[in-house]
């Protein structure tokens, strides 16, 4: 016992130093560092920054330098967008930024995907902490570092960054970085976002930050290794070069400032820019009402199997603090790819504020720095190092929407508004990811730009815009099919046609999505995959009485060569999913409907794959919708007359679409009465509605009811405490299917001896 108490004694300072030195000297592997990865706030002011601010603190001088650096970032952004070879680069899925010497993002390009650079501060801080003083690596002028592993700070491993340190007279003054959604990365499925990944080992290239550039030249041996690790060596080469030269262009701009205004001016500008924005955010938050809003969003699959996955969100504002509490969200999946690191979630929440709440704020890390985020460890929104996360967008985007939905309630009550109160934007990447060998013999793996056409939510005073922008970027592009078809061996036979009745009704309806119908034409080695939630349960919520969007499954028509049909029996072809699936016009073809988690599937010539982009949420009671707007929606093919009449209670002539206003008023009054008749007192409703546990027939993940501390793991009988991680394995869908079939064989008495 005495010995035990001796061992338990607190070590002295000297002993702590010795232990730390031993541990530092014997580190096996420099994995993602929780100290870096869990912190999204600004680093403390350094002595150098203090001294610089003492020397240069004039707000007008700082503003002048900031504008100049901003112009440099914008110039670099334009270069990447123009020169980049990845489809993502062409559609604006890129960004450039300037980071302080401590690694904080101070200024980002005005265009592009903010979340990219909002996360790059993590790998920069990793470089500073681990490589700066490492004699085998070091950080010196002319160096450049590459990075893509999300666990070191990234959305997913498709995005690659080039990071350059900037020196002045031998001293590090800042960093510049450029990030592009490259797509292909050598994962088990082409395109860089494998939903089949069951561990990080399936997710392709996993580049922790390492040096790939010396003397401003890309090292050919490392480049060759990287090219050898992916399906598109050309893309890997081209875009590394593009990012390097964009960084060099920004570096030129910074050097001009260094030469004309001195390093103190630059350092002070970067620091004060961040501190001023952070202070302004605190001020704005303090004007919000003190209150709490609770909401949740449901994912309806892991992309491998149907299930119900909860993203739970409680948003509380007290004084000048704003706290997102995601505890109660689903546990992480140990062998499914829909998890996200918490930094990814935070990056996307930053997007809520910079594009949907305070669009006037400059884009950078500081705008989200003072906002707090709480999660359960090893949850789907804060996954562990060992969990795959190549489909993190599923959780990042549903987390974003939970935040957007909660924030809207605050905005409504906020005295000073910087934009309109609005319902959530559609949040899923309903697009085709593709890969294979093109008609030109090139091996490709990437995706259609249609992911950028998410429908906008309705606002306080008007309908949402159709297919406006992805939740993660502004001014993104859904592209030109004529240009795409030059490079890929499939046609979009339906490219942009509004999907009828795929609506989110309300007083103001959400912006609608459009139909995409693809078929491989000129390759025998080509396939598609899709990765989205929302085939069975909408991944949104409506606002103030408005509805969520519809659901959007994947449909396939196989055992047909539609190109033969188009040439020989064109009258059989329909340009509508609804018509093709209902009428089934091709003899011998098979027609099927699926959830949106289609793993990579080789497509034969002429087989049809059909999906729809989704709608933003509706705002307000649909009985208050202007009848004229309902008819306009019918005329524009957004809604069928029957659905319009049933939902909106508008009475009109079926042929002329002339509105009978009196009859409409009467129908609406009747519906209001019917609503009252259907209603029950709140306590009674709760009594009938609430169940103690999730239903047994659904695989349900996350908290249930008010108890956010208990997380269900696919069954009412299997739980974990929020703060006590447990493995959460899913059975392979093929094994599930085999078990089902075997059960049927057993039931039919036909199993025989195979199972013994």
């Amino acid at each position, binding site marked *: 016992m005495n010995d035990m108490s001796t061992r338990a004694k607190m070590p002295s300072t000297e002993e702590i130093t010795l232990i730390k030195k031993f541990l530092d000297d014997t580190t096996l592997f420099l994995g993602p560092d929780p100290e870096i990865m869990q912190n999204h706030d600004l680093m403390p002011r350094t002595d150098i920054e203090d001294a610089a601010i003492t020397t240069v603190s004039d707000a*007008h001088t700082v503003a002048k330098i900031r504008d100049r650096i901003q112009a440099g970032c914008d110039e670099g952004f334009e270069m990447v967008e123009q020169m980049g070879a990845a489809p993502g680069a062409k559609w604006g899925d890129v960004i450039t930024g300037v980071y302080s010497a401590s690694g904080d993002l101070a200024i980002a390009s005005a265009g592009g995907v903010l979340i990219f650079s909002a996360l790059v501060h993590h790998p920069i801080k990793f470089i500073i902490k681990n490589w700066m003083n490492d004699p085998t690596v070091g950080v010196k002028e002319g160096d450049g570092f590459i990075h893509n592993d999300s666990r070191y700070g990234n959305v997913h491993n498709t995005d690659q960054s080039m990071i350059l340190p900037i020196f002045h007279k031998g001293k590090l003054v800042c960093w510049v970085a450029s990030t592009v959604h490259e797509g292909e990365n050598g994962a088990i499925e082409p395109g860089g976002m494998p939903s089949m990944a069951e561990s990080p080992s399936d997710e392709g290239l996993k580049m922790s930050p390492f040096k790939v550039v010396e003397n401003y030249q890309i090292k050919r041996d490392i480049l060759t290794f990287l090219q050898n690790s992916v399906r598109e060596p050309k893309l890997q080469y081209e875009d590394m070069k593009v990012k390097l030269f964009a960084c060099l262009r920004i570096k030129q701009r910074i050097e001009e400032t260094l030469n004309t205004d001195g390093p103190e001016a630059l350092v002070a500008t970067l620091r004060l820019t961040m501190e001023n924005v952070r202070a302004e955010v605190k001020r704005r938050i303090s004007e919000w009402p003190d209150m709490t809003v609770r909401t949740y969003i449901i994912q309806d699959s892991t992309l491998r199997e149907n299930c119900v996955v909860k993203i739970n969100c409680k948003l509380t504002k007290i004084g000048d603090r704003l706290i997102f509490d995601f505890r109660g969200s689903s546990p992480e999946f140990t062998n499914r790819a829909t998890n996200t690191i918490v930094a990814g979630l935070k990056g996307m929440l930053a997007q809520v504020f910079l594009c949907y709440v305070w669009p006037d704020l400059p884009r950078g890390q500081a705008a989200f720095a003072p906002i707090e985020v709480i999660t359960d460890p090893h949850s789907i929104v804060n996954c562990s190092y060992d969990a795959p996360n190549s489909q993190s967008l599923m959780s990042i985007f549903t987390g974003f929407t939970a935040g957007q939905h909660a924030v809207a309630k605050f905005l409504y009550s906020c005295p000073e508004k910087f934009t309109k109160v609005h319902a959530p934007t559609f949040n899923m990447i309903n697009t085709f990811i593709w890969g294979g060998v093109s008609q030109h013999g090139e091996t490709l793996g990437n995706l259609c730009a249609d992911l950028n056409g998410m429908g906008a939510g309705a606002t306080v005073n008007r309908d949402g815009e159709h297919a406006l922008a992805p939740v993660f970027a502004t001014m993104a592009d859904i592209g030109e099919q004529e240009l795409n078809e030059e490079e890929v061996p499939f046609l979009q036979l339906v490219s942009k046609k509004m999907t009828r009745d795929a609506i989110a009704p309300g007083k103001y309806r959400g912006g609608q999505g*459009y139909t995409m119908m693809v078929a491989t034409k000129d390759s025998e080695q080509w396939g598609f995959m899709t990765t989205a939630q929302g085939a069975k349960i909408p991944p949104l919520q409506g606002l103030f009485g408005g509805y969520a969007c519809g659901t959007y499954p994947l449909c396939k028509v196989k055992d047909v060569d539609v190109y033969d049909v188009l040439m020989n029996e064109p009258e059989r072809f329909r340009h509508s999913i609804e018509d093709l699936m209902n009428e089934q016009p091709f003899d011998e073809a098979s027609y099927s409907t699926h959830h949106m988690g289609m793993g990579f599937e080789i497509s034969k010539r002429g087989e049809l794959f059909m999906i729809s982009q989704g709608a933003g949420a509706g705002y307000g009671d649909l009985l208050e919708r202007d009848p004229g707007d309902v008819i306009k929606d019918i005329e524009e093919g957004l809604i069928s007359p029957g659905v319009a009449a049933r939902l909106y209670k508008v009475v009109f002539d079926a042929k002329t679409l002339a509105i009978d206003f009196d009859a409409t008023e009467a129908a609406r009054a009747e519906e209001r009465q019917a609503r009252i008749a259907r209603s029950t007192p709140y306590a009674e409703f709760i009594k009938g509605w609430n169940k103690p546990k999730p239903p047994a027939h659904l695989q349900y993940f996350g908290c249930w009811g008010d108890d956010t501390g208990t997380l269900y793991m696919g069954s009412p009988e299997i739980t974990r405490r929020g703060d006590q991680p447990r493995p959460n394995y899913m059975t392979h869908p093929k094994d599930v299917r085999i078990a089902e079939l075997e059960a049927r064989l057993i039931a039919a008495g036909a199993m025989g001896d195979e199972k013994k």
Partner: protein
Amino acid sequence: MKRVSVDIGGTFTDCFVVWGGQYIETKALTTHHNLAMGFNEALGKACDTLGLGLEEILGKVDSVRYATTLGTNALIEHKGPKIGMLVTAGYEATVPLSRARGYGEGLDNLGQQDMPNAQRPDPLVEPHMICGVRERLDFEGKMVMRLDEEDVRRQLRELVDRGAQIIVVALVNSVVNPAHEQRIEEIVLEEYPTHLLGAIPVILSHQVAGRKGEYVRATSAIVDGYLHSTMYHALSALEQNLRAHKYEKPMLVIHNSGGMAQLNSTDALQTIHSGPVSGIGASEHLSMQAALGNVVATDMGGTSYDIGIVVEGGIKHYDFNPVIDRWLVSVPMVHLVTLGAGGGSVASYDRMYKTVKCGPESAGSDPGPACYDRGGMQPTVTDADLLLGYLDAKNYAGGSISLNPRRAKAAVEDALCDELDCDVIEAAKLIRQKVDDNMANGLFTELRARGYDPKDFTMLAYGGNGPLHCCGIAQNLSIDQILAPPLSSVFSAVGAGNMHQLHIHEQSLYMVLYDSNTRHIFDDYDRFNAIVAELKEKGTQDLLRQGVPLEQISHDLELDMRYGNQLVQTTAVIPAHEVHGPGDVLAIISQFSTDYGKRFGEGSQAPEAGIRINTIRVAAYAKHETVKFEDIKPLPKPERSAPPAPDSHRTCHFVGFDQAFETPVWARKDIVPGVEIEGPAIVASEVTTFLVNPGWTYVAAKQGASWFLRNEAPITRH
């Protein structure tokens, strides 16, 4: 040479008459209800100067040329016919969805970032007026689904029943195989023949724009169709007016491609922005004649700051997908960038950064700056300029507007002084500094993005506020010389007077010059040569049709090329128009590499990823005689003369200097060529104020040109 050129702007109709050795510049208010009236008045003033009659002048000039903003205005005001549109089935929402990003085209950064307020502009074609027709071609133009003619007739009748006044046809991949579009035109003519009153004009997308991109080509055709009748009627009325006054020759219309053509060889789309483009043309002409080298042309007015680039060697800077009003289109247009910075730009307090913001909001001309005394309460750049002493309150804009300094002072004090804890002069300096910085940053980005260094450029400063702000802008850019050009008050009209007849034809294609997979170098020389020959022939026929003799027709060949699968299409000007062997192909590759390296940095080239041609473009042109500028270069310093005694002095304040300067003021008309004035100084004319900052020298040159030269030894700042 005897010539009349006109720039019909939103406010003024500018007229420039060359009559032998005489250059006459006149202005009249634009008469929107009948453009000919404004034209006649402006030309009448020139007649008075020359002592000749209208008919005598119009009977003897070699040409009358028009640049006009009429089309731009019609778009903004949404005055156009009801368009019906036929597209490939399955692509009905391509135009309404505007590539998603269409909501932000033509907006500033804030407008593009603010998603809840994002709203697409009112459509030029209503969604229910777009019908899909059953047909499909692939990327090589091969048929995938034949055109269903009955379907076309059915959809056509439907559109006409819904009120279509014009039909636009935009089918997928029609630029590589226009057969289906052409057949639809025939069907429209069969259904609605031209001899009947109900005939309907048809616009085919492949005839308006020759490059791939189904959305941008469709919007090009729509804008063209939308403006077609408006432009035709207005310009025809102008031509009839000329005929009535004894002008017998064809009227020439300036194109945004930087050239011009007869009315019957002009698409409506080509006339958009032709006024500002003419200003760039004038800059180019001036640069060549006066051997100025690289020039950046800047036009600062009340609400905007236009920037254009003219570089030595004849490289033209085009936007191949320019934004016209709010619409992304696909026509080659002379590159022109417009920033939201002008005299009317509103200044406000930037709470976050504790400094001054300037623009992009503008007080415009109504109510205008606070000092206009028309109800404007917000401080503007012009208010700051007045408070700093640069403007003559009693003689602004030739005395047409009386400025009220008390209003300016009150506006600046109310909006800024308390927040900034400074006096009104300091606040005015901050406004001035901010707006000049904004313009300098925009100009810098513009030049640098194209691989140029600003210090290698002469700045041309025109527009009402250009000479007032040019020193402050150039100071930030290491630009050492600025020219306020001769004839600057009608500069765009001068540009129109120097245009050449020009037609551009282009063809999208998938042509691999170097295939990195097979390591094969292009050898289908006949294909390349045949396409170039066809495009040349089209341009030649355009000019022959307008009476240009064959021997006066020249051609330039440009190739849009890229490495691997990049988006960027760097344009290479290729001297040899035919290829006959690997040497010719490698010469093209080398030219491309040089141009690309200049733009993005030497070493950024990536030929290992393959090299492709995406577009072949041929410009066919016929040169015309041009205006001769005299030697407008500033005299060498020893030959310069001292100015006369100044008319007056004003107390002026300058950014970077604590103390005020008693600044001499001269009237421009009193300054003869060769006079040199050290800054700080003011030289005022009826149309602008030439502000010479400390550290700069003003030198008057011939033909009314004014130079600002940065002193070799900058004076010490306090």
